[in-house]
């Protein structure tokens, strides 16, 4: 599935929620079921620090596609992280660079991505795009 199809799918899922509790329940479930990030990748160079919660983002470049894995110490953040992985992981650098992130606004998670929430998510999106740019330029950003 391409990135915009995934985004559309997510928007559809969120449109079925009646209230904030449904939305949070969904994020909590997603957070709890996010595959565990290998401890060896939970290192400082993968750490995106927010004041409120921390996110670890690991990337690999395989056959022209970037594979992202990630984790967070907070469950809700982890839920949003899993949405971002669903959208961005497994795509080419070009697709990732071009991808829009307005859908987070549409599904009502924009608050969570404002810099004031300090949960590391806005930096995570920035980091995903930076990885894409680096892989495209033929660099290996993972040391």
């Amino acid at each position: 599935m391409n990135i915009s199809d995934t985004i559309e799918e997510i928007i559809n899922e969120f449109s079925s929620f009646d209230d904030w509790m449904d939305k949070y329940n969904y994020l909590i479930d997603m957070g709890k079921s996010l595959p565990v990030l290998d401890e060896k990748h939970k290192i400082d160079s993968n750490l995106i620090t927010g004041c409120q919660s921390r996110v670890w983002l690991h990337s690999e470049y395989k056959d022209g596609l970037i594979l992202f894995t990630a984790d967070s110490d907070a469950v809700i953040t982890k839920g949003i992280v899993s949405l971002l992985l669903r959208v961005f992981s497994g795509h080419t650098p070009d697709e990732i660079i071009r991808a829009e992130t307005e859908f987070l606004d549409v599904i009502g998670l924009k608050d969570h991505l404002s810099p004031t929430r300090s949960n590391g998510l806005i930096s995570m999106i920035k980091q995903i795009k930076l990885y894409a740019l680096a892989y495209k330029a033929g660099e290996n950003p993972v040391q």
Partner: protein
Amino acid sequence: MNSTIERIRSEFTILGQQVNGKPLAYFDNAATTQKPERVIEAINRYYREANSNVHRGVHRMSQQATQAYESARGKVAGFLNASSPAEIIFTRGTTEAINLVAASFGEAFVNQGDEILVSALEHHSNIVPWQQVCLRKNALLKVIPVFENGELDLESYEKLLTPKTKIVAFNHISNALGTINPIMEMIRLAHASGIPALIDGAQGLSHGPVDVEDLDCDFYTFSSHKMYGPMGIGGLYGKRKWLEQMPPYQCGGEMISKVTFEKTTFNELPYKFEAGTPNVADAIGLAEAIDFLGVTGWDFIRKQEADLLAYGTEQLNAIPGVKIIGTARNKASILSFILNDIHFFDAGSIIDQYGIAVRTGNHCTQPLMDRLGIIGTIRASFSFYNTREEIDRLTEAIRKVIALFH
């Protein structure tokens, strides 16, 4: 809710708001208190009717503004029982006041190999400025240890007071845990070794009276916005003997006496430390907040806040999975807690949905959190305008959080 609380709450328009579709329960008073109408109105009135730049103006408006500004200073001096308004320096708040002392006192009195003593309970604002002085002067920052319950280790404190110690700095009340430190005793001990003491009073002035003469502290710093006044102003009380020996902190207008390109002589106290156009409107707002506290009365404030702290502590302790962080014998109405393995960000996000404002995180006290072996807490800080009913809503929300994440 009794009628006194109802009347007081009616003075705070903001408390009547809905947040996330629920009535606001505002428990972030240690971060900033709300402002009563009379404070907002005093600021409005100043800009509508009296705005003019202070000092050195011969015209009527300037004289009136100067008078209002200086009378606000007098009000603060009286509130703190300072011996003279010249010992009150207006700053942007506690942080700027501490920076002023650290930079200026540090410049004059701290030398290579000297020591500066702070406590393990401090806000970053009462650590980092001293750390920077130590870096510049090649001095050493020493730390008064804290016990698990949030009380300072006074025996260790005494031993840390040495001939090398140039100043001690600690808070009156811990913003993160609510501990009320025995500052009178701590100041006395410092003085017994001939060491001046600075008190970070950011949390100190909203919960009870402070008498700097009685305390005999050398410096007391505070923020207006944590005591029902406007943001952007606060101050430093300093003993005249220190302030006179300290060099200016910032330079510009008002703080000078005579300027030539060869040399500048500085103005007398307190103007020596107030460079540039001051924050007149907010000084007037602060004076109004002091009047508001006076009318409300410390007896009422202390009784109400003690009741809320006791009730909140009891209610939180009754919930399995809640652990209160900071159990000092003497506490202000600040209640910090954790929920076992539930991250404070998760808890805070859900509690917010119920219209309840609590603060989560390390509360700008990372060294304290490290010492306690936690990454942060959820903090509910009560003002006398809060109610038991609001605390019930908080405990209800906490129960929902626990159910949701387990």
